[in-house]
């Protein structure tokens, strides 16, 4: 047979199925022709009817098992795997009914195989609920056709027993005519049946046990649940019911139907964030460390009532007259002929440059607070969410922020470093720029200002928010004094802008420098912000961020420039975060890890078998160009990714022992932003133990680091030791203890394609990582 483009026609793979079909049909036909007539006459006509039905059942199930799609997954779109391919680890853990299950990355299909899914090398497809590939039906047995295969086995066993029995009866009744054709043929049929009796009955019994236990052949053979708990079992009856009675699953490989195209045309609606702003800001009072987004969301909702409580006391503490004054000033300032950029609500930072406001620090404060609330939905949304999370500077929100607020953050980012530096003169130009940009997004202040009571929480929130926010340049002194212009505008502005790129950096620093202080602050910290006497709650910060800002600013600026460059080069760096946003990992440890990692210079060779390694092993040449091309995008992603990486690494660490954890810390620290003066205390205590989907983030970091080494990414950050990861990976001390890894049994042993030999490391819960050493 000629082999054409595409799949080669391999006749050999059809031999077993042809043989099986031939034997089945042939033997049964002979039985019906030669044996049944006598049986019908001698015993009962029900015999051929019975045998006929059984044979029909056998044939039907055989056909279904052979021709039915077992549940093949279509290949993942390019968009889906864009961020996974190069930086993702080989395995991703997911928790199913309390049990950690590993999902392996399929290099062929470009997704993480869902639980119980496996890739069939014969069919070259990932199959859902993969049982095995059966050569006798020349098909994979998976979710959709397992029932038919099982019924085929059952019915075939029944049929064989029936044929053998009736043949025996025939032969026993024709012992004297053994040489006759009928008898001979019947004996031949009996021999065939007897020959295949043992294997078929054996296989049937095996599958009966599997069905009762709720396992697949694949799981049984690979010993996945040996000595462990099977999370997929529903109990014996439930399992049987599931196999036999569950609805027929749909095909995934479908021809694209022509459906009505939904047109997406701008202008687009934006969510109304005014209410959310209030809610969010109140709950994010800068004191409570919401460890993750979902938590903060919950706390947001839960704290709505709190906001009500908080609001009344605030105005008395503040100066009502001041507020009205501010509002008036704001109004005038707005209407006044300020620079064009400033007319439409500029960034909070801009207010400090307004001549009208320069004399009145209060104006600055409130203006900025109001300003922030006034911002356009999306920026506000990001801001709000960021504020919610910024309190927890260890959280991953900053991971998300850059992904979807890149441009705005980027712009604000420009000014923020300068803002950090004592908010004063040198930041003027940049803040003006950012103000201009942000100003266009702003909604008029007036509507908000009219909500007197509502605005107070904003202000109060903003102050502590920005405090806890990564505005490193803020000093507690300025914050304690609500009238301090620098404090206010910086707070607001930083709250607005610091969510961006420097946040991971600063937040880590913040964590280090002010973690205790911030956490000490009780929830009712609104008072200090509003100028109340609450300053007693906070001690003046021993560290003046102004002093540290220069180096920070430098690195931030560097980073920003890099990101800008990268952004220009690539169109979809955000896809990097498509997955990271989706895969939620507890955020508490992410930033912590960033800080902790910076300490330990030891690099971790913990590659977690990143997929590109694996793929390099298999197809080095093909992957490389892709890798190379995506390196720059990844490097930009990398700038955003430290958190993701640390998060994911953290997730992976959770599965490893402490040693490896520490080693990882060191490694990640090398890859992450390391500002010169940035020393953060290690606080790995927040490490979660069982992250659900920790993969992509860690992977993203791991891979970015790797890739940066491959192509010395333009990220020429002095403080970023990008080059080190690889070398350090290689020199990774065996901090990671391994116990025999079971992953090796799974797939191709990852050969040291690009980097070095890959070690398979198994961690807690049977998870296995492949580490390049």
């Amino acid at each position, binding site marked *: 047979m000629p082999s054409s483009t595409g799949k080669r026609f391999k006749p050999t793979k059809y031999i077993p199925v042809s043989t099986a079909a031939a034997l089945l049909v042939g033997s049964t036909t002979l039985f019906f022709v030669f044996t049944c007539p006598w049986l019908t006459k001698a015993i009962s006509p029900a015999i051929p009817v019975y045998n006929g039905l059984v044979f*029909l*059942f056998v*044939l*039907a199930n055989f056909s279904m098992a052979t021709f039915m799609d077992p549940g093949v*997954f*279509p290949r993942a*779109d390019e968009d*889906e795997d864009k961020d996974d391919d190069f930086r993702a680890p080989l395995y991703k853990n997911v*928790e*199913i*009914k309390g049990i950690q*299950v590993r999902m392996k990355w399929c290099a062929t299909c470009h997704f993480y195989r*869902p*639980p*119980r899914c496996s890739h069939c090398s014969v069919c070259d497809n990932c199959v*859902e609920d993969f049982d095995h590939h059966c050569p006798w039906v020349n098909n994979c047995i998976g979710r959709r056709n397992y029932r*038919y295969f099982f019924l085929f086995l059952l019915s075939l066993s029944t049929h064989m027993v029936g044929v053998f029995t009736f043949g025996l009866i025939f032969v026993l009744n024709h012992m004297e005519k053994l040489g006759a054709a009928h008898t001979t043929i019947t004996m031949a049929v009996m021999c065939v049946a007897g020959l295949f009796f043992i294997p078929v009955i054996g296989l049937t019994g095996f599958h009966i046990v599997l069905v009762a236990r709720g396992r697949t052949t694949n799981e049984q053979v690979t010993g996945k649940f040996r000595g462990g708990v099977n999370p997929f079992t529903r109990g014996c009856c439930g399992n049987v019911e599931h196999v*036999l*009675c569950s*609805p027929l*699953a*749909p095909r*995934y490989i*479908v021809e694209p139907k022509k459906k009505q195209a*939904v*047109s*997406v*045309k*701008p*202008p*687009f*609606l934006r*969510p109304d964030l005014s209410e959310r702003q209030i809610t969010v800001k109140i709950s994010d009072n800068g004191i409570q460390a919401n460890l993750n*987004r979902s938590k903060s969301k919950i706390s947001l909702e839960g704290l709505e009532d709190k906001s009500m409580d908080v609001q009344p006391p605030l105005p008395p503490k503040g100066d009502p007259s001041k507020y009205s004054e501010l509002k008036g000033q704001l109004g005038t300032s707005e209407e006044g002929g300020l620079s064009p950029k400033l007319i439409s609500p500029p960034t909070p930072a801009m207010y400090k440059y307004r001549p009208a406001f320069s004399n009145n620090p209060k104006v600055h404060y409130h203006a900025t607070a109001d300003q922030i609330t006034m911002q*356009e939905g*999306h*920026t506000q*949304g990001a801001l709000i969410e960021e504020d919610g999370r910024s309190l927890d500077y260890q959280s991953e929100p900053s991971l*998300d922020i850059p*992904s*979807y*607020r*890149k*441009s*705005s953050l980027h712009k604000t980012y420009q000014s923020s470093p300068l803002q950090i530096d004592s908010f004063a003169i040198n930041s003027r130009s940049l803040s003006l720029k950012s103000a*201009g940009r942000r100003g*266009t*997004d702003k909604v008029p202040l007036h509507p908000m200002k009219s909500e007197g009571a509502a605005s107070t929480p904003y202000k109060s929130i903003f102050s502590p928010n920005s405090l806890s926010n990564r505005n490193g340049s803020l000093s507690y002194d300025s914050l304690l004094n609500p009238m301090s212009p620098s404090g206010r505008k910086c707070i607001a502005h930083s709250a607005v802008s610091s969510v961006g790129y420097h946040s991971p950096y600063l937040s880590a620093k913040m964590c280090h420098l002010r973690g205790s202080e911030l956490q000490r602050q009780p929830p009712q910290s609104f008072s200090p912000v509003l100028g109340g006497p609450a300053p007693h709650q906070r001690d003046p910060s021993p560290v003046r961020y102004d002093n540290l800002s220069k180096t920070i600013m430098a690195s931030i600026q560097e980073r920003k420039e890099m990101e800008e460059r990268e*952004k*220009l080069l690539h*169109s*979809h760096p*955000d*896809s990097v*975060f*498509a997955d990271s*946003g*989706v895969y*939620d990992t507890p955020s508490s440890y992410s930033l912590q890890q960033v800080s902790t990692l910076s300490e330990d210079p030891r690099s971790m060779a913990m590659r977690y078998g990143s997929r590109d390694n694996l793929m390099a092993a298999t197809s080095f040449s093909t992957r490389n160009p892709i890798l190379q091309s995506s390196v720059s995008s990844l490097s930009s992603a990398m700038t955003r990714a430290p958190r993701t990486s640390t998060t994911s690494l953290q997730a992976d660490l959770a599965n490893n022992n402490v040693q490896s954890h520490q080693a990882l810390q060191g490694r990640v620290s090398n890859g992450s932003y390391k500002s010169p003066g940035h020393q953060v205390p290690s606080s790995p205590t927040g490490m979660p133990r069982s992250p*659900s989907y920790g993969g992509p983030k860690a992977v993203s970091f791991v891979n970015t680091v790797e890739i940066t080494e491959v192509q010395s990414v333009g990220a020429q950050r002095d403080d970023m030791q990008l080059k080190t990861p690889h070398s350090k990976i290689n020199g990774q001390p065996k901090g990671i203890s391994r116990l025999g890894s079971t992953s090796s049994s799974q797939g191709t042993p990852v050969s040291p394609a690009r980097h070095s030999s890959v070690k398979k490391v198994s961690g807690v819960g049977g998870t296995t990582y492949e580490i390049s050493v």
Partner: protein
Amino acid sequence: MATEVHSLQELRRSASLATKVFVQRDYSDGTTCQFQTKFPPELESRIERQLFEETVKTLNGFYAEAEKIGGSSYLEGCLACATAYFIFLCMETHYEKVLKKISKYIQEQNEKIYAPRGLLLTDPLERGMRVIEISIYEDRCSSGSSSSGSSSSSSGGGGGGAGGR
């Protein structure tokens, strides 16, 4: 869906695909088909959290109904056995019926809720029921908003469509 009309003269608004968000499966309850209701951060500024969660919860409900082992699935199985599975040629299965419902629901959600916000849901069936793909479109004004320069076109940056520039 992305209509890209480049007109330098007029202020023509076109939408272009900016990025995609993938809502992954929630495997916490085994292999039953459920999607995570966690709100992706990329959608933070594009759609209300509640709407999104409602959509995902409804979809989860549909899938649970499709996979439910109950009276109809028993009947279907018996009938199929009795007819040597020829019944599958004539009649569509329970799951397929629910899938049709889901498809209609997604279509309706897209038309009513997501498309006006510059988003588009993709039926998970097309992705093997592994993810819900949400495409985020950006408003690319030819007037060159401040965010238009960002090639990455994060949703936040390009969202100048709603606000007047």
